Protein backbone atom coordinates (compact mmCIF):
# COMPACT_ATOMS: atom_id res chain seq x y z
CA UNK A 1 0.00 0.00 0.00
CA UNK A 2 2.81 2.36 0.97
CA UNK A 3 4.63 1.48 -2.27
CA UNK A 4 1.53 2.45 -4.26
CA UNK A 5 0.77 5.58 -2.28
CA UNK A 6 4.28 7.01 -2.27
CA UNK A 7 4.58 7.62 -6.05
CA UNK A 8 1.05 9.05 -6.02
CA UNK A 9 1.89 11.50 -3.22
CA UNK A 10 5.19 12.38 -4.91
CA UNK A 11 3.35 13.01 -8.19
CA UNK A 12 0.77 15.23 -6.44
CA UNK A 13 3.43 17.27 -4.61
CA UNK A 14 5.56 17.59 -7.75
CA UNK A 15 2.63 18.63 -9.92
CA UNK A 16 1.60 21.33 -7.41
CA UNK A 17 5.17 22.64 -7.21
CA UNK A 18 5.74 22.58 -10.97
CA UNK A 19 2.37 24.23 -11.72
CA UNK A 20 3.20 27.02 -9.24
CA UNK A 21 6.64 27.44 -10.86
CA UNK A 22 5.06 27.40 -14.30
CA UNK A 23 2.65 30.19 -13.42
CA UNK A 24 5.24 32.24 -11.53
CA UNK A 25 8.03 32.01 -14.07
CA UNK A 26 7.85 29.25 -16.65
CA UNK A 27 4.81 30.36 -18.62
CA UNK A 28 6.13 33.88 -19.29
CA UNK A 29 9.62 32.65 -20.13
CA UNK A 30 8.34 29.88 -22.40
CA UNK A 31 5.88 32.20 -24.20
CA UNK A 32 8.76 34.59 -24.98
CA UNK A 33 10.97 31.72 -26.11
CA UNK A 34 8.15 30.19 -28.15
CA UNK A 35 7.40 33.49 -29.90
CA UNK A 36 11.01 33.63 -31.14
CA UNK A 37 11.82 29.97 -31.70
CA UNK A 38 8.54 28.87 -33.26
CA UNK A 39 8.11 31.86 -35.61
CA UNK A 40 10.20 30.46 -38.51
CA UNK A 41 8.47 27.08 -38.28
CA UNK A 42 5.02 28.67 -38.06
CA UNK A 43 5.84 30.93 -41.04
CA UNK A 44 6.87 27.87 -43.02
CA UNK A 45 3.50 26.33 -42.14
CA UNK A 46 1.69 29.47 -43.33
CA UNK A 47 1.04 31.15 -39.98
CA UNK A 48 2.27 34.74 -39.98
CA UNK A 49 0.97 36.06 -36.66
CA UNK A 50 1.08 34.35 -33.29
CA UNK A 51 -2.46 34.56 -31.96
CA UNK A 52 -3.35 34.64 -28.26
CA UNK A 53 -5.05 31.32 -28.61
CA UNK A 54 -6.52 28.63 -26.36
CA UNK A 55 -3.85 26.31 -27.78
CA UNK A 56 -1.23 28.29 -25.86
CA UNK A 57 -2.93 27.36 -22.58
CA UNK A 58 -1.84 23.79 -23.34
CA UNK A 59 1.82 24.82 -23.12
CA UNK A 60 1.62 23.67 -19.50
CA UNK A 61 1.89 20.07 -20.78
CA UNK A 62 5.54 20.16 -19.65
CA UNK A 63 4.23 19.77 -16.10
CA UNK A 64 2.51 16.35 -16.44
CA UNK A 65 5.38 15.08 -18.59
CA UNK A 66 7.99 16.09 -16.01
CA UNK A 67 5.90 14.69 -13.17
CA UNK A 68 5.48 11.34 -14.91
CA UNK A 69 9.19 11.14 -15.75
CA UNK A 70 10.31 12.13 -12.26
CA UNK A 71 7.75 10.18 -10.22
CA UNK A 72 7.94 6.84 -12.07
CA UNK A 73 9.50 4.36 -9.65
CA UNK A 74 12.25 2.08 -10.91
CA UNK A 75 13.30 4.23 -13.86
CA UNK A 76 17.08 4.61 -14.19
CA UNK A 77 18.23 8.21 -13.67
CA UNK A 78 20.11 8.21 -16.96
CA UNK A 79 16.94 7.18 -18.81
CA UNK A 80 14.90 9.67 -16.76
CA UNK A 81 17.15 12.63 -17.63
CA UNK A 82 17.65 11.51 -21.23
CA UNK A 83 13.88 11.19 -21.64
CA UNK A 84 13.32 14.67 -20.21
CA UNK A 85 15.99 16.18 -22.47
CA UNK A 86 14.48 14.55 -25.55
CA UNK A 87 10.87 14.98 -24.47
CA UNK A 88 11.01 18.76 -23.97
CA UNK A 89 11.88 19.57 -27.60
CA UNK A 90 9.26 17.05 -28.76
CA UNK A 91 6.62 18.78 -26.63
CA UNK A 92 7.76 22.10 -28.11
CA UNK A 93 7.19 20.66 -31.60
CA UNK A 94 3.78 19.45 -30.46
CA UNK A 95 2.96 22.99 -29.32
CA UNK A 96 4.09 24.40 -32.68
CA UNK A 97 1.81 21.92 -34.43
CA UNK A 98 -1.15 22.74 -32.20
CA UNK A 99 -0.75 26.52 -32.61
CA UNK A 100 -0.41 26.06 -36.38
CA UNK A 101 -3.51 23.86 -36.59
CA UNK A 102 -5.49 26.35 -34.56
CA UNK A 103 -4.33 29.39 -36.53
CA UNK A 104 -4.95 27.69 -39.87
CA UNK A 105 -8.35 26.36 -38.84
CA UNK A 106 -9.50 29.90 -38.06
CA UNK A 107 -7.70 31.64 -40.89
CA UNK A 108 -8.41 32.13 -44.52
CA UNK A 109 -6.11 29.27 -45.46
CA UNK A 110 -8.89 26.75 -45.07
CA UNK A 111 -12.02 28.52 -46.31
CA UNK A 112 -15.20 26.72 -45.43
CA UNK A 113 -13.55 24.30 -43.05
CA UNK A 114 -15.03 23.56 -39.66
CA UNK A 115 -12.46 24.96 -37.23
CA UNK A 116 -13.98 23.13 -34.27
CA UNK A 117 -13.59 19.72 -35.85
CA UNK A 118 -9.98 20.53 -36.80
CA UNK A 119 -8.86 21.96 -33.47
CA UNK A 120 -10.44 19.45 -31.10
CA UNK A 121 -8.62 16.39 -32.46
CA UNK A 122 -5.35 18.36 -32.44
CA UNK A 123 -5.99 19.34 -28.82
CA UNK A 124 -6.70 15.69 -28.00
CA UNK A 125 -3.36 14.69 -29.50
CA UNK A 126 -1.61 17.52 -27.63
CA UNK A 127 -3.22 16.36 -24.38
CA UNK A 128 -2.12 12.77 -24.94
CA UNK A 129 1.44 13.68 -25.98
CA UNK A 130 2.96 13.80 -22.44
CA UNK A 131 1.53 10.31 -21.76
CA UNK A 132 2.81 8.95 -25.08
CA UNK A 133 6.30 10.42 -24.51
CA UNK A 134 6.37 9.00 -20.98
CA UNK A 135 5.35 5.57 -22.33
CA UNK A 136 8.17 5.84 -24.86
CA UNK A 137 10.93 6.91 -22.47
CA UNK A 138 9.79 4.78 -19.52
CA UNK A 139 9.36 1.79 -21.83
CA UNK A 140 11.50 -0.51 -19.66
CA UNK A 141 9.35 0.09 -16.58
CA UNK A 142 6.15 0.00 -18.60
CA UNK A 143 7.20 -3.28 -20.22
CA UNK A 144 7.12 -4.89 -16.77
CA UNK A 145 3.51 -3.76 -16.41
CA UNK A 146 2.55 -4.94 -19.86
CA UNK A 147 3.90 -8.45 -19.44
CA UNK A 148 1.44 -10.58 -17.54
CA UNK A 149 -1.61 -8.86 -18.99
CA UNK A 150 -2.46 -12.11 -20.77
CA UNK A 151 -1.99 -14.42 -17.85
CA UNK A 152 1.62 -13.67 -17.07
CA UNK A 153 3.11 -14.65 -20.43
CA UNK A 154 6.65 -13.38 -20.39
CA UNK A 155 6.57 -13.04 -16.61
CA UNK A 156 7.97 -9.53 -16.26
CA UNK A 157 8.42 -7.94 -12.88
CA UNK A 158 6.14 -5.27 -11.54
CA UNK A 159 7.74 -1.87 -11.02
CA UNK A 160 8.75 -0.98 -7.54
Amino acid at each position, binding site marked *: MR*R*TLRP*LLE*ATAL*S*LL*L*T*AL*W*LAWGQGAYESFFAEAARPMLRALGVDALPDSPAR*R*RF*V*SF*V*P*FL*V*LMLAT*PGLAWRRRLGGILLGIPLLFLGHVGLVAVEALSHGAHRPGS*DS*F*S*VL*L*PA*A*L*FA*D*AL*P*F*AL*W*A*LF*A*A*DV*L*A*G*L*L*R*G*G*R*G*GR*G*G*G*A*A*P*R
Partner: protein
Amino acid sequence: MPGSLRRLLPNPAHRFLAVFALLLGLEVWLYPIATKRWFGAVDALTTATARIEHRVAGWIWADAALEGKQVWLGGFSVRIIEECTGIFEALIFAAAVLAYPTSLARRAIGIGLGVPLLYLFNLLRILVLLGVGRARPELFEFMHLYFWQATLILMITSVWLLWIFAVVRRDAPNAPPAA
Protein backbone atom coordinates in the same frame (compact mmCIF):
# COMPACT_ATOMS: atom_id res chain seq x y z
CA MET B 1 -1.05 -9.38 -31.57
CA PRO B 2 0.32 -10.19 -35.02
CA GLY B 3 3.73 -11.83 -34.97
CA SER B 4 5.13 -9.30 -37.43
CA LEU B 5 4.44 -6.41 -35.02
CA ARG B 6 6.01 -8.46 -32.21
CA ARG B 7 9.15 -8.92 -34.32
CA LEU B 8 9.21 -5.28 -35.42
CA LEU B 9 8.73 -3.96 -31.87
CA PRO B 10 10.12 -6.52 -29.41
CA ASN B 11 9.57 -4.23 -26.40
CA PRO B 12 5.91 -4.60 -25.28
CA ALA B 13 5.87 -0.93 -24.24
CA HIS B 14 6.71 0.12 -27.80
CA ARG B 15 4.00 -2.18 -29.15
CA PHE B 16 1.56 -0.64 -26.64
CA LEU B 17 2.56 2.85 -27.76
CA ALA B 18 2.11 1.99 -31.45
CA VAL B 19 -1.38 0.56 -30.86
CA PHE B 20 -2.25 3.47 -28.52
CA ALA B 21 -1.24 6.02 -31.18
CA LEU B 22 -3.20 4.12 -33.82
CA LEU B 23 -6.33 4.00 -31.64
CA LEU B 24 -5.99 7.64 -30.68
CA GLY B 25 -5.66 8.51 -34.38
CA LEU B 26 -8.83 6.53 -35.06
CA GLU B 27 -10.68 8.34 -32.26
CA VAL B 28 -9.41 11.69 -33.52
CA TRP B 29 -10.71 10.83 -36.98
CA LEU B 30 -14.08 9.57 -35.77
CA TYR B 31 -14.72 12.14 -33.02
CA PRO B 32 -15.63 15.14 -35.23
CA ILE B 33 -17.80 12.90 -37.41
CA ALA B 34 -19.58 11.46 -34.37
CA THR B 35 -20.07 14.84 -32.66
CA LYS B 36 -21.45 16.34 -35.86
CA ARG B 37 -23.87 13.45 -36.35
CA TRP B 38 -24.87 13.14 -32.70
CA PHE B 39 -24.40 16.73 -31.54
CA GLY B 40 -27.51 16.31 -29.37
CA ALA B 41 -25.70 13.69 -27.26
CA VAL B 42 -22.74 16.02 -26.60
CA ASP B 43 -25.11 18.87 -25.82
CA ALA B 44 -27.13 16.63 -23.48
CA LEU B 45 -23.91 15.57 -21.71
CA THR B 46 -22.79 19.18 -21.12
CA THR B 47 -26.29 20.12 -19.95
CA ALA B 48 -26.43 17.09 -17.63
CA THR B 49 -22.96 17.92 -16.26
CA ALA B 50 -24.08 21.49 -15.51
CA ARG B 51 -27.24 20.19 -13.80
CA ILE B 52 -25.36 17.61 -11.70
CA GLU B 53 -22.77 20.23 -10.76
CA HIS B 54 -25.54 22.64 -9.73
CA ARG B 55 -27.30 19.92 -7.72
CA VAL B 56 -24.11 18.87 -5.87
CA ALA B 57 -23.08 22.49 -5.29
CA GLY B 58 -26.57 23.08 -3.87
CA TRP B 59 -25.93 20.40 -1.21
CA ILE B 60 -22.85 22.29 -0.02
CA TRP B 61 -23.67 25.93 -0.66
CA ALA B 62 -27.10 27.54 -0.35
CA ASP B 63 -26.61 30.10 -3.13
CA ALA B 64 -25.89 27.76 -6.06
CA ALA B 65 -27.84 28.65 -9.20
CA LEU B 66 -28.10 27.36 -12.75
CA GLU B 67 -28.54 29.41 -15.91
CA GLY B 68 -28.41 27.22 -18.99
CA LYS B 69 -24.96 25.62 -18.83
CA GLN B 70 -23.62 28.24 -16.45
CA VAL B 71 -23.36 27.28 -12.78
CA TRP B 72 -23.36 30.18 -10.35
CA LEU B 73 -22.07 30.30 -6.80
CA GLY B 74 -22.81 33.71 -5.35
CA GLY B 75 -21.26 36.20 -7.76
CA PHE B 76 -18.95 33.62 -9.33
CA SER B 77 -19.84 31.33 -12.21
CA VAL B 78 -18.37 28.67 -14.47
CA ARG B 79 -19.65 27.75 -17.91
CA ILE B 80 -19.72 24.04 -18.65
CA ILE B 81 -18.32 23.39 -22.12
CA GLU B 82 -17.58 20.16 -24.01
CA GLU B 83 -14.09 19.88 -22.50
CA CYS B 84 -15.60 20.05 -18.97
CA THR B 85 -17.44 16.77 -19.52
CA GLY B 86 -14.25 14.72 -19.34
CA ILE B 87 -14.71 13.49 -22.90
CA PHE B 88 -11.01 14.05 -23.75
CA GLU B 89 -9.92 12.14 -20.67
CA ALA B 90 -12.31 9.32 -21.55
CA LEU B 91 -11.02 9.08 -25.13
CA ILE B 92 -7.34 9.01 -24.11
CA PHE B 93 -8.10 6.52 -21.32
CA ALA B 94 -10.11 4.27 -23.67
CA ALA B 95 -7.23 4.21 -26.16
CA ALA B 96 -4.79 3.29 -23.35
CA VAL B 97 -7.07 0.49 -22.07
CA LEU B 98 -7.75 -0.91 -25.54
CA ALA B 99 -4.04 -0.85 -26.41
CA TYR B 100 -3.15 -2.89 -23.32
CA PRO B 101 -2.58 -6.55 -24.18
CA THR B 102 -5.31 -8.28 -22.16
CA SER B 103 -8.66 -10.00 -22.66
CA LEU B 104 -11.71 -8.22 -24.06
CA ALA B 105 -13.59 -8.74 -20.78
CA ARG B 106 -10.88 -6.95 -18.76
CA ARG B 107 -10.79 -4.14 -21.31
CA ALA B 108 -14.59 -3.81 -21.02
CA ILE B 109 -14.28 -3.65 -17.21
CA GLY B 110 -11.56 -0.99 -17.61
CA ILE B 111 -13.70 1.22 -19.80
CA GLY B 112 -16.92 0.45 -17.91
CA LEU B 113 -15.45 1.46 -14.56
CA GLY B 114 -12.69 3.88 -15.60
CA VAL B 115 -14.77 6.27 -17.71
CA PRO B 116 -17.40 6.87 -14.96
CA LEU B 117 -14.56 7.26 -12.44
CA LEU B 118 -12.90 9.88 -14.65
CA TYR B 119 -16.28 11.61 -14.97
CA LEU B 120 -16.62 11.66 -11.16
CA PHE B 121 -13.10 13.13 -10.85
CA ASN B 122 -14.15 15.72 -13.38
CA LEU B 123 -17.28 16.66 -11.42
CA LEU B 124 -15.14 16.98 -8.29
CA ARG B 125 -12.63 19.15 -10.19
CA ILE B 126 -15.37 21.58 -11.31
CA LEU B 127 -16.85 21.63 -7.80
CA VAL B 128 -13.46 22.51 -6.28
CA LEU B 129 -12.99 25.21 -8.93
CA LEU B 130 -16.40 26.68 -8.10
CA GLY B 131 -15.58 26.76 -4.39
CA VAL B 132 -12.12 28.24 -4.95
CA GLY B 133 -13.43 30.76 -7.47
CA ARG B 134 -15.88 32.12 -4.93
CA ALA B 135 -13.84 31.89 -1.74
CA ARG B 136 -10.33 32.65 -3.06
CA PRO B 137 -10.59 34.17 -6.56
CA GLU B 138 -6.87 34.98 -6.51
CA LEU B 139 -6.17 31.22 -6.49
CA PHE B 140 -8.57 30.44 -9.32
CA GLU B 141 -6.06 30.71 -12.19
CA PHE B 142 -3.63 28.38 -10.44
CA MET B 143 -6.32 25.86 -9.55
CA HIS B 144 -7.87 25.98 -13.02
CA LEU B 145 -4.55 25.29 -14.69
CA TYR B 146 -3.63 22.67 -12.10
CA PHE B 147 -6.89 20.76 -12.23
CA TRP B 148 -7.28 21.08 -15.99
CA GLN B 149 -4.08 20.53 -17.91
CA ALA B 150 -1.52 19.74 -15.23
CA THR B 151 -3.46 16.85 -13.72
CA LEU B 152 -5.41 15.67 -16.76
CA ILE B 153 -2.78 13.17 -17.84
CA LEU B 154 -1.90 12.27 -14.25
CA MET B 155 -5.57 11.48 -13.60
CA ILE B 156 -5.77 9.27 -16.69
CA THR B 157 -2.48 7.53 -15.85
CA SER B 158 -3.59 6.91 -12.24
CA VAL B 159 -6.92 5.36 -13.29
CA TRP B 160 -5.15 3.31 -15.99
CA LEU B 161 -2.58 1.99 -13.48
CA LEU B 162 -5.36 1.32 -10.96
CA TRP B 163 -7.13 -0.78 -13.59
CA ILE B 164 -3.92 -2.68 -14.38
CA PHE B 165 -3.20 -3.46 -10.73
CA ALA B 166 -6.77 -4.01 -9.52
CA VAL B 167 -8.27 -5.82 -12.50
CA VAL B 168 -5.73 -7.09 -15.01
CA ARG B 169 -3.00 -8.30 -12.67
CA ARG B 170 -5.36 -9.45 -9.95
CA ASP B 171 -7.24 -11.79 -12.31
CA ALA B 172 -4.30 -12.86 -14.45
CA PRO B 173 -3.02 -16.33 -13.46
CA ASN B 174 0.73 -16.39 -12.76
CA ALA B 175 0.88 -12.63 -12.98
CA PRO B 176 3.65 -10.98 -10.99
CA PRO B 177 2.46 -9.51 -7.68
CA ALA B 178 0.99 -6.04 -7.86
CA ALA B 179 2.96 -3.20 -6.35
